[in-house]
């Protein structure tokens, strides 16, 4: 693949380094993490989720995890889109409103209920909602749930997305995008930590 490996780039892994050699021992995983990124951000069919929506959700999700090379990367991906500056302003405001610590949430009623942990039930502000539109506002609310309290997810959350204009296929792609970023940001963080310890 001609494109530079995105995890290596974000984690600062140099060709020929010790971590480069370790990553080469899981070549299929490395190549398919890259293909996952490409199929989400350079899809062959963006009919159900636009490229701008993908970049906007990614900027929000990675921003909720705190400042990082990954968050900067996706902010930079959103900025050049039509409406990018306006969306970025709204998303920055929503990241500030949505930052908290997870995972929290509730279990099905029963013995695990003693582990239920309360936390922020995030909703987009009225001001941002008009900047983002119905679809993206619903997406940000669901993305926040996926990031911080995935065990709270319920069938009614699927209905909220469908009601906001998301197709069933669009929900699958959007869910994959948030879930993939949850993976990518952690691999990058873990590899960066290991590289720093060895530096």
């Amino acid at each position: 693949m001609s494109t530079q490996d995105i995890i290596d780039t974000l984690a600062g892994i140099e060709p020929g380094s010790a971590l480069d050699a370790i990553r080469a021992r899981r070549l299929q995983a490395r190549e398919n993490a890259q293909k996952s990124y490409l199929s989400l951000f350079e899809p062959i069919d963006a009919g159900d989720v636009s490229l701008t929506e993908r970049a906007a959700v990614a900027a929000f999700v990675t921003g909720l995890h705190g400042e990082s090379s990954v968050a900067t990367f996706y902010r930079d991906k959103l900025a050049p889109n039509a409406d990018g500056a306006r969306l970025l302003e709204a998303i920055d405001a929503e990241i500030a409103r949505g930052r908290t610590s997870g995972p929290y949430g509730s279990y099905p009623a029963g013995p695990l209920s003693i582990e239920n942990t309360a936390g922020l039930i995030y909703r987009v502000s009225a001001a941002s909602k008009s900047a983002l539109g119905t679809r993206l506002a619903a997406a940000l609310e669901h993305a926040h749930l996926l990031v911080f309290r995935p065990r709270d997810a319920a069938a009614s959350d699927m209905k909220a997305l469908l009601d906001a204009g998301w197709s069933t296929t669009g929900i699958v792609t959007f869910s994959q995008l948030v879930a993939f970023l949850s993976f990518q940001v952690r691999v990058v963080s873990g590899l960066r930590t290991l590289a720093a310890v060895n530096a």
Partner: protein
Amino acid sequence: MSATVNPPVVFTQNELGWVSWIDPLPEADLTERHFAGLVDRSRAKSEYFRLLVRDPEVLEARTKTDKDIFYNVADGLPRAERELAAAATSRYNGCIYCASVHARFASTYSKRRDDVQRLLDEGIKADLDERWNAVVKASVALAATPIAFGPDNIAELRSAGLDDAEIVDVINGASFFNWANRLMLSLGEPSK
């Protein structure tokens, strides 16, 4: 969607079903593009995979990432401890379905079913042994948001005997379950 759902209310190593909240593709509608996305044709029988195959390119890449992280045991961390990382992540995020599958695998490959069950029953603070505690703690630190994984986790993994390649397997396995848990938890629910 399907028949009656009977959700489990505890973490278990028993086999569970999974029921989608939105429409999977009907098996009869699957094309070769979809089968490429499923990777294993037999996955067409699974409601979960027939839902994810609505975006076949992402599913294919996700599946191949998953398989290499967990099944490529030519070198690196033993399979049992990769499964432990997956089970611990799922326990912490609260994914009863994922925890059941990967706790079973951890038991199968480690022959330490009782220790695995204590992870499920007591949670991520269960005292297993130095090596397993370090793997669980590192997985949990990675799953937290903001991410809490740091140099102390690496020091503990090293002191428990893991080399850097094995530590990368922990990072990959635990990180991957932050992907898997979010799909399983949010697109449907487990059923006994």
